[in-house]
């Protein structure tokens, strides 16, 4: 998918002066795909990758403007057009998946953001944070004006944190190991089982509870599939 890009996007490297490692477009797209799959399959919201999103956006605009210069009827043009479409699909799908989780779990997402320690990276990008706050306020006002205001005095509040379901981190996910891990503690499923440890070999695939491997997903050691 990313081969067709490589002759286009050399200027992306100049824009990333704040980032230490220089990324080729192919690596960038691989990063996007990784973030996309992780976000799609994990039950809870993951850390935002806004710098990847921004870079991909730049890349897309760049490719579009390159395409304008190509003469009509060129075979190469339609190949590139298809490439743009596919990248845009991945990007949109990624952002959509995040937004859907924010909407679904908005009280919990905001609560997590509030209790975040100073210096710890935020799960939400500034735009997503603004969206989540607006969504919260909007929904709360709506419930108040339509029903809660007209209820008896002691019932005029609903604790949204309790009313809206939490993400189910106990669900099972498929994963592929990218870096070898040792001594992963697996919690018992039933009462007569005891907890045990497993080693995850590089390249192997597993089906495990999300809770067990959540830190490995955010560190990038495993990839959800």
């Amino acid at each position, binding site marked *: 998918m990313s081969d067709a890009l490589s002759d286009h996007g050399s200027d992306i490297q100049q824009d990333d002066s704040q980032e230490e490692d220089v990324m080729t477009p192919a690596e960038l797209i691989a990063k996007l795909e990784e973030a996309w799959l992780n976000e799609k399959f994990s039950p809870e919201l993951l850390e935002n990758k806004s710098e990847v999103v921004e870079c991909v956006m730049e890349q897309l605009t760049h490719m579009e403007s390159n395409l304008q210069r190509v003469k009509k009827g060129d075979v190469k043009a339609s190949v590139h057009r298809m490439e743009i479409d596919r990248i845009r699909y991945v990007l949109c799908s990624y952002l959509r998946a995040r937004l859907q989780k924010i909407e679904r779990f908005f009280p919990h997402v905001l609560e997590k953001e509030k209790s975040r320690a100073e210096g710890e990276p935020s799960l939400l990008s500034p735009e997503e944070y603004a*969206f989540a706050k*607006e*969504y919260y306020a909007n929904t709360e006002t709506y419930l108040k004006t339509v029903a809660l205001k007209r209820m008896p005095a002691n019932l005029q509040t609903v604790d949204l944190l309790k009313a809206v379901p939490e993400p189910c981190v106990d669900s099972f996910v498929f994963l592929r190991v990218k870096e070898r891990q040792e001594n992963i503690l697996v919690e018992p499923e039933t009462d007569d089982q005891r907890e045990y440890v497993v080693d995850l070999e590089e390249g192997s695939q597993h089906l495990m509870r999300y809770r067990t491997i959540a830190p490995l997903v955010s560190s990038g050691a495993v990839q959800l599939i």
Partner: protein
Amino acid sequence: MFGEKAVELIRELHRMSDGQLPAFNEDGLRQVLQEMEALYDQNQTDVNEAKAEGRAELIPSIKLRHCCLLRNQRCLAAYLYDRLLRIRALRWEYGSVLPPNVRFHMCAEELQWFAQYKKSLASFMRSFGGGEGLDITQDMKPPKSLYIEVRCLKDHGEFEIDDGTVVLLKKNSQHFLPRWKCEQLIRQGVLEHVVS
């Protein structure tokens, strides 16, 4: 019985299973709120009586009424919230302008919520790519081919494609168009994807 009307509201939504939006049941909502008011008043008098005259036998019925109140509150909140989720799904399906028959089923506050949601979503999408924006309600399915064959279901007038060509979308005419241009029109029901 207490709580019956509130559950009826939930059932009404449940019957419309495939995400359709039934008309806002203002009447049902009012009846539940009235029931809650009556329960609350009754409880207030009983509480006062129990306190003043020490009548402990009133306490179980107070508790029962309070449970009913909580249940009604919960049902109403669920009814309203589930409707919001359906309305949200409509935004993604139809775009920012809802068809009149759907708007007809919404109450004034829901319209307000929808307008605000639309605004939040729009400013979120505008924030990408240095103010240029990215419409994430497009590209809902992975692209298979660049061009697709579509049939017009109603007259839509002229339609310009990226390279400047203008096609006339007349009812029952068939066209071979870039997919990324017609996705929205397909969802609005103007075009139909012809799968041969």
